[in-house]
């Protein structure tokens, strides 16, 4: 065979290729497909040898073709035929932007079939029909089955065009104008002049109508993506308060926000991110309240995102973050529309993305990460109490194991003597030093937590009980850990669970390990060092230019809403750290009917 002739110089054993050729002959299919499967007589082209051929023209002169094979100059070899067919297979498609909608319907449809990879791509439906206007005009619609609501397509596109053209005897200029303004009763439309716009419309779920002899196409709104109904928030549950949450539908999410802020000042700017996914992104803010500079900055950052595909707002968070490696999150992801609207009211901005049930609020401060909406809905004393507990639990979650290590190893004088002797008595039986047993227990708890996140919900609580109790108890009885350590680790875990923000609680877990190491090295000194470095880092983090620790540092006055919460009726001035344009959130005196309040509020109300 010719192949063997080609390979004579290469000392390939003859029997091998013969066997393979025999097998090949059993399957009489396209040669080139099979050859590609078995890779028989390809020489591995190294970079060096590829570089040797400076240009394909030069190579062609020498008898090498594009894929790097030396070719005899005969055109009828199988290999040559293979090459020819490969070249003619499919011409590289031109960019759809350059292709205008032509007046010839068939040409449009053929190009569209080419761009949409029909007929392999079965989701795309092209329905040709005729419109009884101007005689019988040929028309066609193209839509994606599943993306467009077929009821809308049938009822509001096909039906009027096919059946109801004679109801309206008016005429509006050209056929296209008639169809557009009189015959297709959909609530939104757009005109497409080139195929790029057509394609965009189709992939977005709209239906595109082509008419013979029209150099434009009509893109009508028929979006009918599958959506979930509004459900409960999965991560931020409150006892008293609304329980509707964002879900993956863009429209529903925006509707939930609009429902709560029925004002014309609420602006939703649409953007698209991802050149392949073209996901819708909305930037929400209250014009007149939000700081223009912050809006501008956020818009600038969003517009500069050039990725192929964005899955979730978490990715957007990282792409627009001030410092992406920072452990402290610089924007807040929340599922609750009431939180989003509260923040919008104070001058923050929100980002909602199609396909993600989490909205992003920026800029935030570290106090925002520790707040839960329930603090507002209950009375101020209760709200302050729970907030104080939560702030303390942040510290508990970070420092407690480190404290335990530092106290037992470096500062045993701090423990009352009897307790000390009791701990020493139990530790006599444990073979590990305190650090090792702390790390063991912490690691096991992290395992339990991760496992608990993956377990199907039926087994979830069981694993929790099994893991925590039995593991801890059994470890104590086996003298692997000392009993007081189980308490320490349990309290730490509880402390880190009370943090409302998921990203922040992850950071707390990581920081905790750093503190454990620092405490193991230098006791309280190490913990103090860690706290100082943490203070430096947190105060240096900025979220869209707003320092994370505002308004404690650097702004004053307090907004009354940090750790302790003042009563709602005293929130009359806006929190200043976002520097909003509006000055007031409330009138000075809300409870006009209460003489005590009237006395308390000075000035004229």
């Amino acid at each position: 065979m010719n192949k063997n002739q080609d390979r004579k110089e290469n000392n390939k054993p003859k029997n091998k290729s013969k066997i393979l050729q025999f097998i090949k002959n059993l399957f009489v299919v396209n040669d080139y497909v099979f050859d590609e499967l078995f890779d028989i007589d390809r020489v591995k082209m190294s970079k060096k040898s590829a570089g040797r051929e400076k240009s394909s023209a030069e190579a062609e002169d020498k008898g090498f073709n594009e894929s790097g094979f030396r070719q005899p100059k005969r055109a009828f070899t199988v290999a040559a035929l293979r090459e020819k067919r490969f070249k003619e297979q499919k011409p590289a498609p031109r960019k759809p932007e350059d292709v205008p909608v032509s007046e010839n319907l068939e040409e449009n449809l053929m190009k569209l079939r080419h761009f949409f990879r029909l007929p392999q791509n079965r989701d795309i439906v092209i329905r040709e029909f005729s419109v009884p206007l101007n005689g019988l005009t040929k028309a066609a619609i193209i839509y994606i089955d599943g993306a467009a609501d077929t009821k809308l397509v049938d009822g509001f596109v096909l039906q009027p065009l096919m059946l109801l053209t004679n109801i309206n005897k008016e005429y509006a200029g050209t056929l296209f104008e008639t169809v557009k303004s009189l015959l297709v009763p959909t609530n939104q439309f757009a005109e497409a002049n080139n195929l790029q716009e057509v394609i965009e419309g189709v992939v977005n779920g709209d239906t595109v109508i082509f008419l013979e002899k029209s150099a434009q196409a009509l893109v009508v709104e028929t979006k009918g993506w599958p959506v979930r109904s509004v459900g409960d928030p999965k991560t931020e549950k409150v006892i008293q308060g609304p329980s509707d949450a964002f879900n993956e539908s863009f429209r529903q999410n925006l509707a939930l926000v609009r429902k709560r802020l029925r004002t014309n000042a609420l602006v939703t700017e649409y953007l698209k991110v991802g050149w392949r996914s073209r996901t819708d992104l909305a930037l929400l803010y209250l014009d007149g309240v939000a700081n223009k500079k912050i809006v501008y900055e956020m818009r600038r950052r969003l517009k500069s995102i050039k990725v192929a595909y964005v899955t979730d707002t978490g990715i957007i968070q990282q792409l627009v973050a001030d410092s992406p490696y920072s452990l402290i999150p610089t924007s807040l992801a929340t599922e609750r529309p009431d939180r989003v609207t509260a923040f919008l009211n104070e001058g923050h901005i929100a980002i909602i993305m199609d396909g993600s049930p989490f909205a992003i609020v920026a800029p935030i401060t570290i106090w925002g990460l520790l707040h839960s909406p329930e603090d507002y809905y209950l009375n101020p004393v209760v709200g302050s109490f729970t907030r104080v507990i939560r702030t303390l639990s942040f510290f508990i979650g970070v420092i407690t194991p480190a404290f335990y290590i530092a106290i037992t190893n470096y500062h045993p004088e701090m423990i009352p003597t009897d307790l000390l002797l009791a701990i020493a008595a139990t530790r006599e039986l444990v073979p590990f030093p305190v650090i090792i047993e702390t790390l063991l227990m912490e690691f096991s708890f992290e395992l339990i937590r991760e496992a608990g996140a993956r377990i199907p919900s039926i087994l979830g609580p069981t694993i929790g009980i099994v893991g925590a109790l039995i593991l801890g108890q059994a470890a104590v009885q086996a003298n692997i850990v000392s009993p007081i350590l189980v308490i320490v680790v349990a309290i730490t875990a509880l402390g880190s669970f009370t943090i409302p923000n998921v990203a922040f609680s992850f950071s707390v877990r990581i920081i905790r390990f750093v503190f454990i190491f620092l405490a193991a090295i230098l006791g309280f000194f190490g913990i103090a060092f860690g706290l100082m470095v943490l203070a430096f880092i947190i105060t240096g983090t900025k979220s869209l230019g707003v320092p994370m620790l505002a308004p404690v540092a650097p702004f004053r006055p307090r907004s009354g809403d940090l750790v302790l919460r003042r009563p709602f009726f005293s929130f009359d001035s806006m929190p200043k750290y976002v520097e909003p344009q509006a000055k007031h959130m409330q009138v000075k005196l809300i409870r006009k009917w209460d003489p005590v309040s009237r006395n308390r509020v000075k000035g004229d109300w």
Partner: protein
Amino acid sequence: MYRLKEGHINSQSLFRILVILVVSNIFLGTPGAMVEEGATAGWILLLFAGAIAGAGIFILIKLLKKFPGKNFIEIAETLWGRPGAVFTALSFGILAVYTAIISLREFAETMLTTVLPRTPISVVTFFFVAAMLLGAYKGLEVIGRTSILLLPFVIGGIFTILFLAGNYISLNNLFPLLGTGLGELAYHAPGRSSIFIEIILVSLIVSNISDIENIPRATWKAFGVSLTVFIVVEIFYISIFRVATSEKLYVPLFQMARIIYMGRFIQRIEAIFIFIWFFTGALKLTLALYAGATALSRGFRIPIYQPLLFPLGLLTFSLSFVPPDIITAVRIDMLYLREYGAIPAWGLPLALLATSFIRKKGGGRPEKSQPD
């Protein structure tokens, strides 16, 4: 002069920075030195020292008011020309780095003596230097905000110690009232006034402060608060420990923390106070290093100060090991830095002010300041 845009702090940050700077001296040997020279009237000595320092600050504020918006180096440049600016920058820088070196050594030694006896001092120093470099690198804004955050803890911690150790006070220990006599007190006062020289930091960072008109108020407030804290601590210290013991004890505040005994549970808790120790020490060192780097960079027209940080930090680290023992270190602090350090610290503003009167310069509008 081309200078990289730096962060700004407001006058409240300034106030807190200055308070922390001065109050950090309490943690070291100052109360003991007061008792040594003034016996039961150590606090009166502080009053005298405060008076002299107040005069010095007054001169400084007057100078700053005369040249609003300009910092010290720029004023020196206006009055004395380029060599003046270089001289001022160098003296500032040397003073700052000297303070950093000695403070670093003292804080590290204190840590070792009190809580970590077996650790080599290089490790402890290394951690201090690491925190110091991080803070100074991040800039004045971060330092200011951290001070705002931490100052309540520091002052609260000091007053907690005083409150809990207050069991042991007997006011009789403050008598005889005048201690070693007013003459002796007045003689020692100028040397001791250098406890407050850290306040001249304010003159260096004027260009970083956003509300310039509040600088005098913030400075006086800081001075008043730190003087009050000093005097209160001194009074408590003498009345708890009596003269004879108090002039011998090594770290006064720590000793007071050690004797806290309120029942079976609240005893031996002095280790908690390591936190405020470290915070104060690290902040003071950070500010000293920052001051040195900024002074040198402004004096020599270097647009940013960050590159100077690592060399200065390394210098501080290695030079802090020069004193062979803690006694020498304390003596260097008390004698050379504190007694002779008062001369350039108060002397320079005085000289500049005199020059400005002679040459009739000054006044003018402040530069536009950036909002915070």
